């Protein structure tokens, strides 16, 4: 297996063609318990990280927003409220199980009218050039096989002046906190996964995929290389999570 044709799936090296299927398996497995697991794993902090991302997005009435890897629709719900009747939100996810859970949840909450759903791969977004005012991808980029390709695809469908926000796990800045975080991720997190979702492996993959994801500076330079301008990032919860923001020139 040549290095060029392989990528990581957690700590495991897999064929690039294989990764999407393996990631899909993880999310098919966790979709039903995704929201409750997020609450338990982050002690509710994921809602705060998402809220900060939404505030940072500066989405206004009339805007067109694409929520990639939108999963169970936390961001799309708020965006639908912010863009109003004249705006439009597209909740996209590559995984149909996650998309179904998200669509049912939003429909039950009465979120409708200005929102549509698309099963889409972030690397090959099925939208015309210059379509969106804002794109967000929350806790999704690390699961994408070719992140550079996905970033270029996002740049293409953004309108000039549009912004991309990437919310993702990152590298804690404090060594002591990093140690505690590691212990939590590899010892406690999979146990919670086993207890609640009866799926220890998927949550072990989650911890491993976080460690394999590019750190703050690397992701920033990847966004620069893809063609985004004014890129910057905001660390949250001691750098365990970061939001990267960049504009299409």
């Amino acid at each position, binding site marked *: 297996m040549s290095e060029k044709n392989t990528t990581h799936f957690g700590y495991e090296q897999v064929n690039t063609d294989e990764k999407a299927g393996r990631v899909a398996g993880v999310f098919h497995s966790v979709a039903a318990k995704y929201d*409750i697991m997020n609450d338990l794993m982050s002690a509710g902090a994921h*809602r*705060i*990280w998402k809220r*900060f991302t939404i505030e940072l997005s500066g989405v206004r009435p009339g805007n067109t927003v694409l929520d990639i890897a939108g999963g169970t629709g936390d961001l799309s719900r708020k965006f639908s409220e912010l863009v109003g009747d004249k705006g439009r939100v597209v909740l996209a996810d590559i995984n149909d199980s996650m998309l179904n859970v998200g669509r049912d949840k939003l429909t039950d909450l009465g979120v409708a009218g200005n929102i549509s759903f698309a099963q889409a791969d972030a690397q090959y977004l099925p939208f015309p050039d210059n379509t969106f005012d804002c794109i967000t991808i929350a806790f999704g980029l690390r699961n994408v096989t070719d992140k550079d390709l996905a970033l270029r695809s996002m740049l293409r469908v953004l309108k000039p002046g549009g912004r991309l926000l990437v919310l993702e796990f990152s590298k804690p800045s404090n060594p002591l906190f990093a140690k505690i975080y590691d212990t939590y991720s590899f010892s406690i997190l999979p146990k919670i996964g086993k207890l609640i979702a009866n799926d220890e492996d998927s949550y072990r993959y989650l911890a491993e995929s976080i460690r394999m994801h590019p750190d703050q500076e690397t992701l920033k330079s990847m966004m620069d290389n893809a063609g985004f301008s004014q890129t910057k990032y905001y660390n949250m919860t001691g750098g365990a999570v970061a939001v990267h923001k960049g504009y299409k020139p």
Partner: protein
Amino acid sequence: MLNDPSISTAIGLILEKSLNTALRYDPATRVKLQTLNSKIVKLSCHSPNIELTFFITDEEIRVSAIDDANDADVIISGEASEFLSLLGQSTYSLSDLNIEISGKVSLLNQIQTILSDVEIDWEEPLTEILGVVPGHALAESLRSSFSWVKKQSNSVKQAIPELLTEELRAVPSETELNHFYQEVDQLSSASQRIDARIQRIKQTLVTKQI
């Protein structure tokens, strides 16, 4: 860690949810709030640095932790400890605290008047932010903490006067004070009666001379 944006975001989120939940069940206050539509209040707290912007709209109050409002109508700034000392007080004077206010001060008075009757329940926003189980647990522990603080504060309120009056005898008790006030009142009445009698005698003497 204290300057982490997630802290100001969490505080903003809890404030926004709490205020708007309270307003949802209080249409009268909501109507009054419409007079302040599109007003912006910025709160700038130091140590830790927390910037919150309050956008008042027709229906609700939106709280943002992103500092993108350059046209705030009023800006309140000060140390976190000063803001914390305001919590739980029904009446207060900002002049007693080291808090700076710039812009339209009258707007703050209006907001204070309008929101003075709003009762805030912290459980709903906490469960929405943290999830049902941790949110309820935190709300419960906050409730018992507040109740403990209130109980302690009441018992301190009761104990201090007892200590000063009964144990230390540093100040008179309320009963002693009331007795003293009664004596003063009686003395005042007696002196007024003497004064009246003197005036009457004087008047009698003047009449006899004529």
